[in-house]
């Protein structure tokens, strides 16, 4: 059986589990609405403001919907021995990882699309080169997925996840807000800085960063998370 088919089955099941969790559904719906409201009430205008708000949207969605959820999902599924159950069957490790994370990534993309569509309808600033926003969104989601699995590797249980997710979450959000003040290409190597650079490129705002270094930044964080998961991830709780 192919890894793709295994991934599809596990992801479909994971989606079912998300859909049955009212808290997750509620926050997943509320998030885009709250962020859209933030766009509406701010009084700044022009490309600079649009780039800033877009960076915040991508960073918040990917760090909260993807990073924190993936960490918590992986840890709690491990605690419930569900991961060991999946691993006792035919599924490959890649299919299990992809299957439990894919629905969260898709949910995050859906949230971003909702915000973008709403903003387009109300006549918000249109990006000159929108593909950079797509790059920011996909790069940020992928790096947050990897870091989520990496963090889950060093998180012993679901309660501990509330603490272990804080540093990287603050790092992503903090670097988004710090980048406009730092004015340095080095900020591209932070997950938030990379997103800001892509957003600025999208709205044709001058930036000390470049697409290459921003992409390198997100690749680095993806590699860090992947390597942590590869080295330290356990399929069952420590006895």
């Amino acid at each position, binding site marked *: *059986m192919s890894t793709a088919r*295994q991934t599809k*089955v*596990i992801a479909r*099941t994971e989606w*079912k*589990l998300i859909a*049955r*969790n009212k808290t997750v559904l509620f926050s997943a719906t509320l998030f885009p609405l709250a962020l859209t409201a933030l766009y509406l009430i701010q009084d700044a205008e022009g490309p600079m403001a649009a780039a800033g708000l877009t960076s915040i949207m991508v960073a918040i969605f990917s760090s909260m919907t993807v990073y924190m959820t993936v960490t918590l999902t992986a840890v709690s*599924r491990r605690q*419930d*021995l*569900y*991961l*060991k*159950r*999946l*691993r*006792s*069957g*035919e*599924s*490959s490790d890649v299919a299990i990882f992809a299957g439990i994370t894919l629905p969260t990534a898709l949910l995050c993309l859906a949230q971003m699309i909702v915000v973008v569509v709403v903003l387009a309808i109300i006549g918000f600033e249109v990006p000159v080169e929108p593909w950079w926003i797509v790059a920011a969104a996909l790069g940020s989601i992928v790096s947050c997925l990897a870091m989520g699995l990496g963090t889950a590797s060093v998180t012993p249980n679901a309660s501990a996840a509330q603490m272990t997710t804080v540093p990287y979450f603050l790092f992503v959000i903090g670097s988004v807000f710090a980048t406009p003040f730092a004015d340095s290409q080095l900020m591209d190597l932070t997950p938030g800085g990379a997103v800001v650079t892509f957003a600025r490129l999208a709205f044709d705002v001058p930036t000390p960063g470049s697409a290459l270094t921003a992409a390198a930044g997100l690749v680095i964080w993806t590699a860090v998370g992947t390597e942590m998961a590869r080295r330290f991830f356990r*399929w069952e709780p420590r006895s």
Partner: protein
Amino acid sequence: MTTTPDFAIQAHDLRCAYGDFEAVRGIDLEIRSGEMFALLGTNGAGKTTTMETLEGHRRADGGTLSVLGHDPYTERPRVRPRVGIMLQESGFAGELTVAETVDMWLALSSSPLGERGRRPDTAVEAMERLDLADRTDTRVVQLSGGQKRRLDLVLATITRPDLVFLDEPTTGLDPESRRRTWDLIETLRGSGTTIVLTTHYLEEAERLADRIAIMHAGRIAVEGTLAELVHDRPTQISFRRPAELSSADIDRALRTVVGPQRLETVAGDGVVLDVTDAQQALGRLLGWADSQGHRLENITVSQASLSDVFAQIAAGQQKQEELV
């Protein structure tokens, strides 16, 4: 190392360690295709580590291992489609129903039985036999511990694998559920499935297993059929000491009559005698009692059991611990 068709599992000098601690210290195993093999052990003997290694959940640190002709760890994709695993502890997505759990498991299987939109007869039959048929729409989180164990067994067996690992399949089950589980396991064996079983219930191993291995301190202490394991073990003759004889009297008399065999007095007037030739010993004992005019009350003869073998191995462990 590849298995010959006659053997589902072959291990030679298998070793597994946790850091400096070697949990499995060089075991040899040959499990024939179609047989039911029980792996028993004292606490910390290394049987769970052995099982996990055979299942491919962990890599062996030494020796050679072949499961259905392949290394179960490095060649997992080749082995798993032919294997069913019932874990020691159930792990499920609690918010799925029983039917959804079974369907997901089938969808993840490459078995033709897992064709979409059709729950195979094996699943329906197993759920009926294990009393889960009326629970198909119940969420797993709402099942009792025993029901989860039974669901676990259903998942391990629905694709009709060639080899099934059952890790303490009846722990936590009531007697009726245990009987149903035994029936299903016996049906599996009847269909030619190779079964590797671990259990803390010795009567389960006695009843079900073709061959039994008892692990102790990371090694296999004894291995064979039940008859082979108890063959050299003494039979016990017990009776109540006649009131007119003291313990010393009977000790002296029995050493003369029966021979220098182990003799112990229990619960005041109880006498327990370990003998290797029960027929000869019993004949002499009764002859002596008749000739001396003694009446032996509550006389019983019990053949050595797996429990005796196990107790002897466990006693060895206790002695070792005391020495340490």
